[in-house]
């Protein structure tokens, strides 16, 4: 049986995947002592992490979080 995810849960999942990818890039570049590693860390890892945090913050302000009018 497939569980239906809400919009917020989908965004949290996407944010998590982006953040894990960014953190893995950071982990790899820490093992690589070369100027290019810093660029990868900053441009690829940094972009993935910024996107992940952005998607998470977006999920906080999404419509589903607003209280319903009484």
């Amino acid at each position, binding site marked *: 049986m497939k569980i239906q995810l809400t919009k*917020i849960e989908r965004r949290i999942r996407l944010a*998590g995947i982006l953040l*894990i990818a960014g*953190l893995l890039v950071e*982990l790899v*570049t820490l093992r690589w002592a070369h100027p290019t590693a810093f660029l990868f860390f*900053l441009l690829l890892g*940094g972009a993935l992490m910024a996107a992940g945090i952005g998607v*998470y913050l977006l999920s906080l302000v999404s419509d589903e979080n607003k209280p319903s009018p009484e």
Partner: protein
Amino acid sequence: MTGNTTILVAVILFSIILIAWLVLRPSITATRGGKMLAFVALLIFPALSGGMGVNRHIERSKTTNFCLSCHVMEDYGKSLRVDDRSFIPATHFQYNLVPRDQACYTCHTDYTMYGNVSAKLRGMKHVYAYYLGKPSQPIKLYQPYNNRECLHCHLGARSFEESEAHTKDPQTLPRIKANQLSCSTTECHNIIHNVGQLKEATFWKEQAK
């Protein structure tokens, strides 16, 4: 792996575990505890890991191994091991006058995070030249070597202040200190890396401790 790197790796792995939990079970964010967990796992820990990562990379950019990791710098690394005391960088490196693990950064301090914007742009140009272009040979400094890099250690030292060569003319020391008389391009200390002479040079082999 240094202590700081170990801590950073631990923070990253812990972050990944927390985030993976949320990815697998996003429904837990419906509860108050889950919301707090999401805030910590998706915002606080990644920001902390990112900040620590930047700091770690900046610190590593000061190391001699980092500078010599590019092929074009190999000869400059070799020049640190020339068995000839007239080679200024070699003498500083071999006699521990500069920390060996930060030998380049000690004498070339106008880069890394605290260098100016043009230093950063030059760094990007170097990466481009390394992969897609052709690095200039021989490598040259962008600006004349500043005596400041020598004086941050030698200033006030008796061997510097009372040296006969420095005191014979009373104008010499003030001009050196004002960077008007270069330490390295005058005939006094002008054998620097001289990578063109490495073919004839003999090299110091560090004894195993």
